[in-house]
């Protein structure tokens, strides 16, 4: 952003101050994440930079905490990863299916009391998690699903559906309903129309909703903290337990893996968003 030559001095000063402030804020946003990366390769059992690390001595770095994460005998990360993936997988499928179907109904112009239904369906996103956790715990305890995978999956479906409903209804606002009428007039039944015409067009919205639901489930601590027994431990729960006891380099190794995962999710979400905009004919 080069300024033209004729820019007055005071404006010039203001402009560079503004850019400096922005850079500092961006630094504040992103820098904390990058502190974790080098420290997870620490050769020593501390979580601050050793002198060898600061001198870039190769002896200061090692992969021992990654080895500990994968093969460490008393480390629960294997079980936690397995549980997290199972729970997130089923929760994602559940929220995506329920949320997409509901979004189809909600974006129909024939739907009565649309605003009220919408408010109710996205309420799990609005109500503070601690309250949702308390209420869901009471329910699961009553029906005997506390400390089971099923209970946790169901509660993550509750928390994940609002995101799917929102992303899919957003995709459907730009949706041209004449294509479904065209399909119907050509003799297609509603299910076939949905599978062959509607779904391919709203796929980007559905997938980005599913991504949100996946991340919500994979990252969720509060409800699992209330519901989980020892068998149902997940990655966030293990991190929570570890952080409460003592900050160990192994946790930083896990955190690094999670940062890599979120980078991948970010890239795919961004690609999906652009594809969705292209499909809906929005060019900005």
């Amino acid at each position: 952003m080069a300024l033209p030559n004729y820019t007055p001095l005071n404006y010039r000063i203001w402009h560079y101050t503004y850019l400096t402030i922005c850079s500092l804020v961006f630094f504040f946003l992103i820098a904390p994440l990058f502190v974790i990366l080098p420290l997870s390769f620490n050769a020593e059992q501390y979580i601050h930079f050793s002198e060898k690390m600061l001198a870039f001595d190769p002896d200061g770095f090692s992969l021992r905490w990654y080895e500990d994460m994968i093969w460490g005998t008393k480390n629960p990360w294997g079980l936690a990863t397995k549980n997290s993936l199972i729970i997130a997988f089923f929760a994602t499928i559940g929220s995506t299916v329920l949320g997409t179907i509901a979004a189809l109904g909600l974006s129909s112009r024939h739907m009565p009391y649309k605003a009220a239904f919408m408010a109710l369906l996205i309420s799990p996103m609005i109500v503070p998690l601690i309250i949702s956790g308390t209420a869901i715990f009471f329910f699961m305890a009553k029906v005997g699903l506390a400390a089971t995978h099923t209970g946790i999956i169901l509660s993550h479906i509750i928390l994940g559906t609002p995101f799917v409903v929102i992303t899919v209804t957003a995709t459907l606002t730009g949706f041209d309903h004449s294509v479904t009428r065209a399909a119907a007039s050509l003799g297609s039944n509603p299910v076939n129309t949905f599978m062959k015409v509607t779904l391919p067009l709203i796929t980007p919205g559905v997938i980005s909703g599913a991504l949100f639901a996946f991340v919500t489930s994979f990252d969720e601590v509060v409800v699992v903290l209330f519901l989980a027994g020892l068998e149902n431990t997940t990655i966030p729960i293990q991190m929570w337990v570890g952080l409460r006891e003592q900050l160990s380099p192994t946790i930083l190794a896990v955190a690094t893996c999670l940062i890599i995962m979120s980078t991948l999710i970010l890239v795919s979400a961004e690609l999906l968003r652009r594809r969705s905009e292209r499909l809906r004919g929005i060019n900005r």
Partner: protein
Amino acid sequence: MSKEQILSSDGLPLEVSLKKAERKNKIKAVLLVAPLFLFIFITYVMPIGDMLFRSVDDRMITKMLPNTFAALEKWDSKELPDEKVYEAFYKDFYPLAMNKTSGKLYARLNYEKSGFSSGLKKTNRKIKKFEKGNYKEQFMATHKIWNKVEYWTALKNTAPKWSYAKYLKGMDLKFDDQRNIVQVDKDRQIHKILWMRTLNVAFWVTIFCFVLSYPIAHLLATLPMKYSNLLMICVLLPFWTSLLVRTSSWMVLLQQQGPINDFIVWLGIAADDNRPELMYNVVGTFVAMTQILLPFMVLPLYSVMKTISPSLMRAGKSLGGTPLVAFAKVYFPLTIPGIGAGCLLVFILAIGYYITPALVGGASGSLISNTIAYHMKSSLDWAFASALGTMLLVGVLTIYWVYNKLVGIDNIKLG
């Protein structure tokens, strides 16, 4: 004037036929929404109702001591009750002691007045040897709580089936012996401090987020696409990263041997052996929550600013406004929906925050959510946790309502 009726192909009037089709579409739409609606209603809305119910439900003790409460009804609360009441209590308590189901009673009555637990435990051991008749003397000989009018008043106060005592406790109020509402002792007023701190943290975190987000959202919205996409990653990467990862990075940064403290020592602000505590207090809560919630402010601001045409600012300036005037009169008012959405989002998220304050906040930086979790998991006073949760929920819904009146919820723009 006669009206010509238009008939559809199957002979029905068009109006009827159209209505029929409309109704069919309506039913179709409702049926599509129904599965999720039922699911959310049963697993989420009803449990929240259950939570409200639990916060006022006090029937357990009413069921456990029916004879006692019936006998106490005529008691005037001035002197010790007469033999009849003691006998009634014996009738209620003896089976509980025999079945070993009196444990819940200790806990319940000890919330009401401390001392009950030890008194009842002792009574529980001795009651098997009680002789018939003259129960008053036998009780009074067993434990001193039975010679005190206060304990009987406290017991009588638990008689109603429904009680809002938990809500009073959440506001540091209580019933005194005459059932007047009074403040609890000064040194026990912890909840008022917690509510104030929660509001305070939520308010300042919202302000900090707004002040930090506004310039970068503006920069992102005005830069050419290829630069802004790159910078957008700085906002989106934290947004997609696990909350616990971000909290642990703040724990690394803020610890006493951490980089920020190193920097402070290097600058010479603090001595190496006297490093300031940046974590496990309210400072840690502020800094970490601001950074974690920042993307929730940037994204709505960005999406609103993106729609503001740059020619508006140019027009403002060409009409004689200085850049500052053009900004204040033209640009800023147009961004208000984004500001509203961002502030609402951050404030509501902050007011119910649990994980980050629990990890970096320590005792002086913990918020109301932490207390709810404590009563759910440790003290197991679920009724009190429900009451605090309900109070928080009412607060959040009020904020939405006010926001809807002022700005309109439809003006919210996300992403």
